[in-house]
């Protein structure tokens, strides 16, 4: 296939995928390659000593949660000892928001792409503020994770199985028309989940107290649906990965130090550059000086054409991430210049139901000089603090140049080999 044909195939897969939420399992039981002494993290590969503060904080919390360390000091020693492995979620058919730490005992959603047969995995959203994914590891964080393992996971698992699964693309399609961008605004998607799943939650056989606590948790967590949506995006992006000759991006992810991309036609290689720092709105008492550079796998939403690429559909989002609605529309329109198509499923009512900009094309990024625009949560740069705000950020151009250089090298090598 030539580049055009390869890209058309990728764009077809990005839109024809049929991602369903089909269940919940323990990470160690369901995630391919997961091990007892392995922690998965957001973004491209990184080792313990190089990790940013919030990712180190999340590692410390995960080791305490797993019972492998009793406190911060023990956790730091263990993490630095070499006894714990660190690998990207993306290399295990998984994704994770912010620090993205996925540990063996965590319950994870299972997303099945029924059209192409692949699966994706992601842990459950903890809410905002002092949470593991933003680097907090105080007792309340660990207690919540334990409750999620003991109650939330099993109750949701039973309800999802009883429902026969949920067509998550249909839910996201609807949520986008209800004012969610499905990255930093997830109110509609969360409400739709509760509405559709309520009848099944009530029939799980768990106690009234347990079921009530699950409903209360969903009601108190406006980002509840984010993780399921991210899992959906991963199951779509993986189906579109590894199409030879394609210049469409199939992963964008940040580890808090570097921003990395993968390109469909360039295999599993990461192309990385230093991550930018978001500009946004901060919780009282915090400022940009406290913020960590861009962090998390949640850019998988923009990768498949929602999130920052659909900001025009979420006017209320600007009150959370900063800026104004005029800019949100401008940013959304700019993304059409660097993408391969307008999504046939995901539509923006405010733009006369125009499909969202879908499939970032490396060639178009270089041609226009425009880079993907992302909205994101902001973590404190120090471990143990948590979320301090939300804002907007861009992908660094250097990632795209590195991928282009590699693709040119490959092309030249093939020519040399053919003429030898």
């Amino acid at each position: 296939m030539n580049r055009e044909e390869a890209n058309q195939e990728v764009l077809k897969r990005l839109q024809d995928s049929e991602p369903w939420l089909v269940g919940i399992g323990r990470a160690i039981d369901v995630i391919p390659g997961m091990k007892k002494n392995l922690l998965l993290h957001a973004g491209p590969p990184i080792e313990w000593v190089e990790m940013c503060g919030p990712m180190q904080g999340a590692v410390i919390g995960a080791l305490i949660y797993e019972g492998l360390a009793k406190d911060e000091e023990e956790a730091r020693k263990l993490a630095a000892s070499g006894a714990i492995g660190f690998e990207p979620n993306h290399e295990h058919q998984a994704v994770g928001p912010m620090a993205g730490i996925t540990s063996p005992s965590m319950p994870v959603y299972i997303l099945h792409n029924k059209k192409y047969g692949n699966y994706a995995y992601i842990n459950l959203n903890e809410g905002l503020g002092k949470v593991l994914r933003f680097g907090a590891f105080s007792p309340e964080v660990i207690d919540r994770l334990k409750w999620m393992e003991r109650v939330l996971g099993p109750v949701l698992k039973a309800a999802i199985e009883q429902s026969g699964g949920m067509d998550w693309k249909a839910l996201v399609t609807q949520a986008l028309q209800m004012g969610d961008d499905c990255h930093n605004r997830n109110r509609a998607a969360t409400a739709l989940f509760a509405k559709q799943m309520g009848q099944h939650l009530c029939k799980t056989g768990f106690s009234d107290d347990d079921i009530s606590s699950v409903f209360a948790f969903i009601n108190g967590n406006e980002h509840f649906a984010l993780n399921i949506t991210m899992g959906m995006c991963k199951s779509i992006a993986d189906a579109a990965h590894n199409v030879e000759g394609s210049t469409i991006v199939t992963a964008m992810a940040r580890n808090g130090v570097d921003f990395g991309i993968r390109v469909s036609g360039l295999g599993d290689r990461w192309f990385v550059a230093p991550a930018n720092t978001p500009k946004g709105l901060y919780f009282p008492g915090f400022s940009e000086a406290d913020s960590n550079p861009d962090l998390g796998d949640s850019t998988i939403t923009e990768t498949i054409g929602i999130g920052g690429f659909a900001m025009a559909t979420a006017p209320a989002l600007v009150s959370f991430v900063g800026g104004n609605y005029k800019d949100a529309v401008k940013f959304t329109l700019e993304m059409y210049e660097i993408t391969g198509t307008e999504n046939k499923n995901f539509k923006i009512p405010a733009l006369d139901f125009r499909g969202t900009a879908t499939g970032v094309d490396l060639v178009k990024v270089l041609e226009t000089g425009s880079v993907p625009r992302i909205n994101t949560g902001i973590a404190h740069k120090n471990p143990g603090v948590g979320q301090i705000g939300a804002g907007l950020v861009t992908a660094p151009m250097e990632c795209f140049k590195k991928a282009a250089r590699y693709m040119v090298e490959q092309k030249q090598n093939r020519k040399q080999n053919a003429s030898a």
Partner: protein
Amino acid sequence: MNTVNDIFGKQLKILNIGLEQFADDLTSQGIPCIQLDWRPPAQGDPEAADLLSLLLE
């Protein structure tokens, strides 16, 4: 030379390319001006332009 000077006595039709500020200044003075959304290929970055030509050849 005289021909050039003639235009200052007429109602100008202005198309601005590049910095929007120039168009904004004219508009604020009541002079109609169209802003053309144009950027140099590869944003004027010679390395990106070279990569593009090699990728697309």
